[in-house]
């Protein structure tokens, strides 16, 4: 690497061409950097691009072809594998494009510095700069790769499936899939069996999310306020017991409840309700199953909210209440103007998460009664929510395309929650600080 003396610096100022550096780096990554006399960086870029072209080009061309056509020879091309390979190539292209754009920006920036008369830094300095600039990417790298392949790729795959005709009767490798546009979504709202199932499941999902979550929050809040009363003794013991339902693994309790609610042999009917001469069809009547589900979710969900609120309540400064007492504030006023705003400010994002979690609460629906009981005239169970319906469509009846279409609709709903979180977070932080 040539050391620049002040004399040559002036010459460079005249002759170094920023445009040429940019164009060179556009032609092939690294050329611009070499022109900028950043040999090391240039060679690394050169190697990366050559290696990329040599090893990945065929895969990418094949992948993009597969993604567009989903295969051309029946029985030989496996549409699903082609689809996944296609998505992987798209991701690789995105990575490569980012690097490429970075290379151009980098070449342009260095060229400009050079043209302004800055000297080329020593190799040592260059390596250190590269390490400093690259460090955050290095730290994010492993996580990012896992995230892309385990979270993003599967979601992208689901999204793609929603636009294909992949189901039990049309499945690779025997058949080829093809892109069908929005046909699945149209079917969902026009074909009578799908329309009926979809509307029923969607409305129950929303009712379930709102009612179950609100109940668990309300009960948690109420209990937190009660136990926080200064006159209550044995607070620690009471709190420990009230948190128990959260501490026991949920799948265990749900299965236990499922047995307890058994119509004929369950403890609820056999031991408790029979004393009042009642037998409630908990597992065979959809309405009763829904009631049972909401009660169980309240049981399971309130301790988290309770613990959360208890923590926040203890952090509210006491002098605020004392000031309110001086002003003659009633208990309701104190709650409305001091307690409530406080706990809501601190916990709103977590409460929103509770709604999002119940919206996707597969475990309780599936483990309690497998989404049943069955209902005439629809292909979803009487208590199926969207996610358990998707599970059944996927693994029981192999209606992959419809399951994927419904997943997209779920994704849209979930995004509404996420959007709220964005605003909430943005409100806490100024843009740059986040």
């Amino acid at each position, binding site marked *: 690497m040539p050391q620049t003396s002040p004399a040559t610096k002036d010459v460079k100022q005249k002759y170094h061409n920023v445009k040429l550096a940019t164009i060179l780096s556009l032609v092939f990554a690294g050329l611009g950097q070499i022109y900028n006399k950043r040999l090391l960086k240039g060679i690394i870029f050169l190697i990366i691009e050559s290696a990329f072209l040599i090893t990945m080009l065929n895969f990418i061309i094949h992948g993009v072809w597969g993604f567009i056509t989903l295969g051309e020879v029946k029985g030989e091309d496996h549409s699903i594998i082609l689809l996944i390979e296609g998505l992987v190539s798209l991701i690789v292209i995105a990575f490569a494009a980012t690097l490429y754009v970075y290379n151009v920006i980098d070449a342009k920036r260095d060229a400009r510095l050079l043209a302004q008369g800055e000297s080329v830094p020593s190799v040592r300095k260059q390596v250190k700069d590269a390490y400093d600039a690259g460090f955050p990417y290095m730290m994010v790298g492993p996580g990012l790769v*896992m995230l892309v392949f385990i979270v993003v790729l599967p979601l992208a795959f689901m999204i793609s499936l929603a636009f294909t005709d992949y189901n039990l009767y049309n499945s690779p490798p025997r058949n080829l899939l093809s892109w069908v546009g929005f046909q699945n979504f149209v079917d969902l709202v026009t074909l009578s069996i799908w329309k009926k199932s979809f509307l029923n499941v969607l409305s129950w999902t929303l009712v379930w999310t709102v009612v179950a979550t609100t109940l668990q929050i309300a009960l948690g809040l109420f209990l937190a306020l009660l136990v926080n009363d200064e006159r209550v003794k044995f607070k620690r013991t009471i709190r420990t017991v009230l948190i128990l339902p959260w501490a026991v693994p949920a*799948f265990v309790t749900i299965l236990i409840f499922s047995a307890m609610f058994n119509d004929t042999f369950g403890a609820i009917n056999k031991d408790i309700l029979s004393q009042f001469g009642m037998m409630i069809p908990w597992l065979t009547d959809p309405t009763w199953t829904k009631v049972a589900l909401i009660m169980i979710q309240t049981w399971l969900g309130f301790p988290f909210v309770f613990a959360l609120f208890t923590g926040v309540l203890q952090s509210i400064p006491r002098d605020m209440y004392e000031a309110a007492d001086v002003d003659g504030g009633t208990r309701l006023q104190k709650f409305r103007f001091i307690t409530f705003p406080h706990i809501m400010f601190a916990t709103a994002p977590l409460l929103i998460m509770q709604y999002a979690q119940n919206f996707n609460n597969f475990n309780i629906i599936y483990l309690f009664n497998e989404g049943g009981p069955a209902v005439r005239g629809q292909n979803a169970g009487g208590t199926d929510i969207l996610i358990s319906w998707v599970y059944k469509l996927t693994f029981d009846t192999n209606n992959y395309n419809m399951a994927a279409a419904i997943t997209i609709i779920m994704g849209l709903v979930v995004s509404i*929650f996420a959007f709220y979180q964005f605003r909430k977070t943005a409100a806490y932080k100024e843009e740059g600080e986040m």
Partner: protein
Amino acid sequence: MNKKTKSRIEMGFIYAFILFMFIIIAYPLLWTIGISLNPGTNMFSSSMIPENITFEHYKWLFTDPSSDYLIWYKNSVFVAVVNSVASVIITSFVAYAFSRYKFVGRKNGLYAFLLLQMFPALMGMVALYILLNLIGLLDNLWGLILIYVGGQIPFNAWLVKGYFDTIPRELDEAARMDGAGHFQVFFKIMLPLAKPILAVVALFNFMAPFTDFLLPRIVLSSPENFTLALGLFNFINNQFANNFTRFAAGSILIAIPIALVFLFLQRYLISGLTSGATKG
């Protein structure tokens, strides 16, 4: 009515309500313990207070040659430990970069995390199944671990980043002045100060394999690879009611250690969650 009696009546109502909650909470738990002590495997002939108490089901789980319970326990502990360690390492790396460095894509990355944590792994289940099949990790504990570790990143990175943000920057700047490198600041300053939140992440990821049954159900197929949750589910799913007492006994054996750990650590869980959420 004077103030004192009014207060007494109020307290009466409060305690009555708390007692009512105690009963509702305790009933199913005690019922399970009662059932697990019944002789025979049938739920229908069992009662909450058995006439002759027996520990045969607990014994069966551990000693019977046809019981895979110990293998499942071992699998669950293995998945839990690896998942917990790997998650803490990867998540803290990511959170450190997002908390302390400016780089291209940082802000959008944070938004992406916020969005992605809302999507359960379940939404991509078909693809996960096919992907694991492609790389030969289907019906393999490592495949399960891979999904757990990847899936937890958005939520936990957000949580840990929120905590890192509360550690004063002056500390790492001072260390930088003294010549500490990127890694030194990370290992010598950030990690020790962030122990509480890292413990929360470790705990979350340690518990997940014990309580999750859906992913194992999709990924694992042979009984010797089952985790506890999946194995227990199959006790009652295959022949309902036939093995219910065994299921009850097995459930109690996981519920007790988990509940104990949980009760010990819940205070940290809560403080970790609130600090991560409000400062995130």
